[in-house]
């Protein structure tokens, strides 16, 4: 027996130790001319390079036997190529003047967006630099069907097709983030520092990410490492007038032979913001500090990455009051404050993740271990004694095996999380009790891609959650599935049709089951319901895309059927001068709507982009009662003008954005309707073309100083407004160089 085990281990180790090198060139498929400065990136190994002036590239260290390259260049269609290493390859790219396609990371198999059976919306944060977003949730609101629920400028979270909080799962490099997101006044636990892109699946995705991936999944992908044997440094500084806010970030990257390292830091300090009436919203000030470190190493068929993130925030809680009928004037000040004050949240987050990948021919094995820790202290009446204090710790694991069999790719995995929440004993109050819960899920996903025009994906998963809190013990379990297909046809008119049916499962959270007390941050007294059942959802999603020579169009209707939908409902009573809310369930509910968009980018005016999108959603019980906090329908328009470099100090880009929010009068009792409003932003991007260029962005958000409050704002009911006119300027300085081998 000993000799059999030894033999198997030896074969495994031999597979791991067989390393390969790779070189080649990238050419235009039509003209066969070489393409200089094309990007060649090895997915999974996470190392890339740029072709030289005659289109050649080389990876100078040993690689797995089989690798997948993502090859892209401006004015060409990006391509994924799986090849055997240890050879010289020629990769041909098809000319295209539309936007680059990208590898989708949220799916277990790295596929290009156009080949994916599930519609994934993707955003590169660098693309927003001309009109920079205030935070990640604000950045994501640029995606159709995604809005943000905010409480002032420092607290914001994404809302995907009407779902937020515990119904939206956020994953950082595939690892789930937990930060008491059940609280209406608890924002995202992560800043934009070091984040390259955001991918969003709209609708239930429990097959991929388990329980709580109910309304959608947000996947945050870290910035890539520097290209091989090179370093880069980026410094970014931004100033905004509405809250006299400064945000400074620095990111340094090294990549040398087998090892790579990224290190970044952020500091942001923001005063109370100015509303359109000229007054300042008290306690809307906040400050953030954070750092990130990322390390990667590869040897032959093994790749390891370690990611670490630390963040610390002190965030004012605006709108805090004990009055049952608050006076908006109490929250509007004539002087702008920045110093630490109360009420406020003090939040510390640590996240660490280690991922190992083993490439065995066309097979891949991945192991991920992670730990996250979120400390939340809320100071209400005392400066040094928290009113509320909780420490949330999570241990996470994920093991996955992937295999390619001809046109099939099969993934199977085991994923889980152990979570413990502890109340701070020095805190004056306790809102939810101490608890621990253990989640485990087992899944299988199969993808088929034909050589012609269609692909299908289907899979199944089983999740179990065991929850313990004092004398309350309960387990929740559910199978989940997903099935989808994609069909592509046409040459001049390129048509893509996707159809997906997916299920979601969400066990009730402790905050819904056992809460009993004043939640100052949410301005209400909350009462839980220990008899809540798990929510279950089944979404039907159809996505049609038409790509013509100058125009692309997307049409995406959807229907989501939900059982046991939990909502918090206002009662006609007060406790401790706070309105009372109970957790209740609707037996059967439905969310349905449509996302539509188009992008016009003509050949004859290659510098012009016109984009427009519209998102509409209805949420109601099957008996016709409205669901609360449904987003206002939104029409977004964008004009982008891009100019070639003509002088040393050049105007590179002009962007004008317009968002029209339609009125929302599909509301519940004790919820107020919201009026329509418009917001216009405009920005200019200049570039000073020195040896190391400096990018200067300046512009204005809410240029017309519109007086509005979004329907999803937690401050709506106290009569204060979102931010008024806000001028900004940002500087981005980047330099890089080579490192000796």
């Amino acid at each position, binding site marked *: 027996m000993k000799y059999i085990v030894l033999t198997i281990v030896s074969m495994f180790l031999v597979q791991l130790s067989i390393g390969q090198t790779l070189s080649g060139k990238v050419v235009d498929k039509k003209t066969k001319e070489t393409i200089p400065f094309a990007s060649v990136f090895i997915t999974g190994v996470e190392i890339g390079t740029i072709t030289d002036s005659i289109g050649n590239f080389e990876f100078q260290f040993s690689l797995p036997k089989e690798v997948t390259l993502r090859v892209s260049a401006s004015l060409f269609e990006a391509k994924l190529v799986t090849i055997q290493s240890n050879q010289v390859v020629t990769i041909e790219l098809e000319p295209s003047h539309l936007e680059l396609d990208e590898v989708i990371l949220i799916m277990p198999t790295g596929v290009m967006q156009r080949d994916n059976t599930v519609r994934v919306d993707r955003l590169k944060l660098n693309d927003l630099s001309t009109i920079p977003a205030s935070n990640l949730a604000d950045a994501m609101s640029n995606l159709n069907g995604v809005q943000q629920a905010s409480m002032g400028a420092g607290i914001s979270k994404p809302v995907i097709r009407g779902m937020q909080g515990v119904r939206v799962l956020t994953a950082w490099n595939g690892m789930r983030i937990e930060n008491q997101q059940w609280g209406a006044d608890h924002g995202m636990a992560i800043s934009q520092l070091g984040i390259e892109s955001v991918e969003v699946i709209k609708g239930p995705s429990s097959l991929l990410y388990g329980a709580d991936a109910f309304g959608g999944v947000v996947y945050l992908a870290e910035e890539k490492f520097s290209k091989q044997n090179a*370093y880069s*440094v980026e410094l970014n500084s931004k100033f905004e007038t509405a809250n006299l806010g400064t945000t*400074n970030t*620095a990111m*340094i990257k090294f990549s040398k032979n087998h090892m790579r390292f990224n*290190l*970044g*830091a*952020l*500091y942001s300090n923001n005063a109370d913001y100015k509303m359109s009436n000229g007054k300042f919203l008290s306690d809307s000030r906040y400050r953030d*500090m*954070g*750092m990130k470190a990322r390390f990667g190493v590869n040897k032959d068929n093994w790749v390891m990455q370690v990611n670490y993130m*630390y963040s*610390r925030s002190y965030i004012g809680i605006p709108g*805090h009051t004990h009055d049952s009928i608050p006076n908006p004037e109490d929250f509007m000040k004539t002087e702008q404050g920045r110093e*630490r*004050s*109360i*009420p406020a949240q003090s939040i510390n987050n640590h996240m660490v993740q280690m991922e190992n990948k083993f490439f065995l021919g066309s097979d891949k094995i991945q192991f991920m271990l992670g730990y996250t820790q979120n400390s939340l202290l809320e100071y209400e*009446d*005392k*400066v*040094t*004694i928290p009113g509320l204090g909780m420490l949330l710790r999570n241990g996470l694991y994920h093991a996955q095996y992937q295999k390619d069999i001809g046109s099939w790719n099969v993934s199977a995995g085991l994923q889980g999380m152990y979570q413990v929440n502890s109340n701070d004993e020095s805190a004056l109050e306790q809102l939810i009790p101490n608890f621990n819960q253990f989640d485990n899920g087992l899944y299988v996903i199969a993808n088929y891609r034909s050589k012609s025009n269609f692909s299908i994906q289907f899979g199944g998963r089983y999740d179990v959650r065991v929850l313990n809190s004092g004398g309350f013990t309960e387990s929740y379990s559910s199978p989940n599935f997903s099935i989808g297909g994609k069909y592509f046809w046409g040459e001049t008119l390129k048509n893509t049709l996707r159809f997906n049916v997916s299920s979601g499962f969400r066990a009730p959270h402790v905050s819904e089951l056992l809460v009993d007390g004043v939640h100052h941050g949410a301005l209400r007294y909350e009462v839980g319901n220990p008899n809540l059942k798990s929510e279950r959802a089944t979404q039907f999603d159809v996505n049609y895309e038409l790509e013509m020579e100058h125009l692309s169009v997307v049409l995406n209707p959807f229907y989501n059927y939900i059982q046991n939908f939990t909502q918090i409902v206002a009662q006609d009573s007060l406790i401790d001068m706070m309105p009372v809310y109970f957790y209740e369930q609707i037996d059967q509910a439905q969310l349905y709507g449509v996302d539509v968009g188009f992008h016009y980018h003509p050949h004859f005016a290659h510098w012009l982009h016109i984009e427009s999108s519209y998102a509409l959603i209805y949420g109601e019980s099957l008996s016709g009662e409205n669901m609360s906090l449904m987003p206002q329908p939104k029409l977004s328009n964008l004009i982008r003008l891009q100019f070639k470099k003509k002088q040393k100090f050049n105007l590179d880009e002009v962007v004008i954005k317009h968002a029209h929010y339609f009125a929302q009068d599909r509301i519940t009792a004790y919820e107020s309707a919201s009026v329509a409003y418009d917001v216009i932003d405009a920005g200019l991007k200049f570039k000073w073309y020195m040896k190391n260029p400096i990018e200067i962005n300046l512009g204005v958000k809410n240029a017309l100083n519109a007086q509005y409050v979004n329907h999803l704002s937690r401050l709506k009911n106290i009569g204060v407004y979102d931010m008024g006119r806000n001028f900004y300027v940002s500087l981005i300085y980047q330099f890089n*160089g080579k490192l000796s081998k």
Partner: protein
Amino acid sequence: MKKKMFVITMALVAMATVSCKKDECSECHYENDQNEEVELGEYCGDDLEAIEASGYNYNGVNYEVHCHEH
């Protein structure tokens, strides 16, 4: 180049770790039996923590202390 990288790395580390928590100070007060605010002056650090936790004793009566404007 090495010197530049070293300086930048140190600046990053400094930016990330500079959190010198200087003693927090606040103006404190209590409400007397006539519901009038009585100012107690500025308290810092451990003294601030102590007075918030234990209150202020005046003529044998212990009053809850509030520090910082709400």
